[in-house]
């Protein structure tokens, strides 16, 4: 390595920021895998379930097509997933109230409880960490994360499509 690495010359504070972020992301991914392991579920299953619970709280019905869009999966794969989650007692299918050709998917109370138990505590902890920021600090953190996200999105766009898009297909 002939050149000096960037972190030898960059301001110490920016080195710390990027190191913290990367470490956080690593810890977060480990946490996600632990959750999936403990619930015996795949990433997509868990995301579908969380989406169902959120939509239910907002009073929005969810169709299989909504899930296909959310997860970037084909409707045939969604059907397989729904069969699995029905068999495991996590979801229920019901006729759509206004569209007779469609159905709505709801999470069962058991699934609600399971997700709450696993993710609820953590979400509360995260919220309380974020709530400890004052208005200016919250602004600093949010603006910084937004510019990082914008940079990453620009780089992604410049480099063309990626292989998969499970975790990132959530923007809409």
């Amino acid at each position: 390595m002939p050149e000096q690495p960037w972190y030898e010359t960059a301001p110490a504070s920016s080195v710390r920021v990027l190191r913290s972020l990367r470490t956080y992301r690593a810890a977060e991914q480990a946490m996600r895998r632990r959750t999936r392991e403990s619930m015996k579920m795949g990433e997509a299953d868990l995301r579908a379930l969380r989406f169902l619970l959120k939509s239910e709280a907002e009073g929005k019905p969810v169709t299989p097509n909504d899930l296909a869009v959310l997860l970037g999966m084909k409707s045939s794969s969604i059907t397989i997933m729904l069969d699995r989650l029905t068999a495991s007692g996590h979801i229920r299918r019901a006729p759509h109230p206004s569209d007779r050709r469609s159905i709505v998917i709801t999470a069962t109370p058991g699934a609600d409880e399971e997700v709450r138990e696993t993710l609820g505590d953590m979400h509360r902890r995260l919220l309380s960490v974020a709530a400890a920021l004052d208005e200016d600090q919250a602004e600093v953190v949010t603006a910084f994360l937004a510019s990082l996200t914008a940079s990453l999105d620009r780089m992604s766009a410049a480099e063309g499509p990626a292989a998969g898009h499970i975790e990132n297909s959530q923007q809409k």
Partner: protein
Amino acid sequence: MTTNKSGSTPHYWYGQEAERQRAVTVLEAMRAYGAADAAMQRRSEHAMRMSENDISALRYLLRANERGVSVGPKELADYLGVQSSSITILLDRLEKAGHVRREPSPFDRRALIIVPTVPTDELHKAILGDIREELIDVAGSLSEKDAETIVEFIDRLRDAVDHIDTAASSHTRAKR
């Protein structure tokens, strides 16, 4: 903005709701960053980049090492949320790279412990080595004070995320 004309008493719930909303906005920004980072990560998989799994594994081992605690493959697999077959592959790779060493446990010769052989600052360098230039520029434009705010916040979030696995053990660990 809503204005309140119902009297001089400040509406407590409104302040609380505003605070909650602010916290949600921050976490939403974090989530969006995570999604963008994950997308980028999938792109750089072929590139020479230390995986998040490797970082988490080494961090866990180094922290345990600092506390004088030894870690076996099972405990590490539990922390990472991976199956024991995957942990073997991961350890093979880390051992080959000279980051860890497997040793017989001093308490049970049939069991293995994993000893980190990479110093903390080496891990830090490895984490930093593959960060993209564009991101370095964004971080470089922060004032020192803002950078400090961000680091403190993110480290606290990280502890909150790490909490799950340490919760059980730290509650029962009455003595230090």
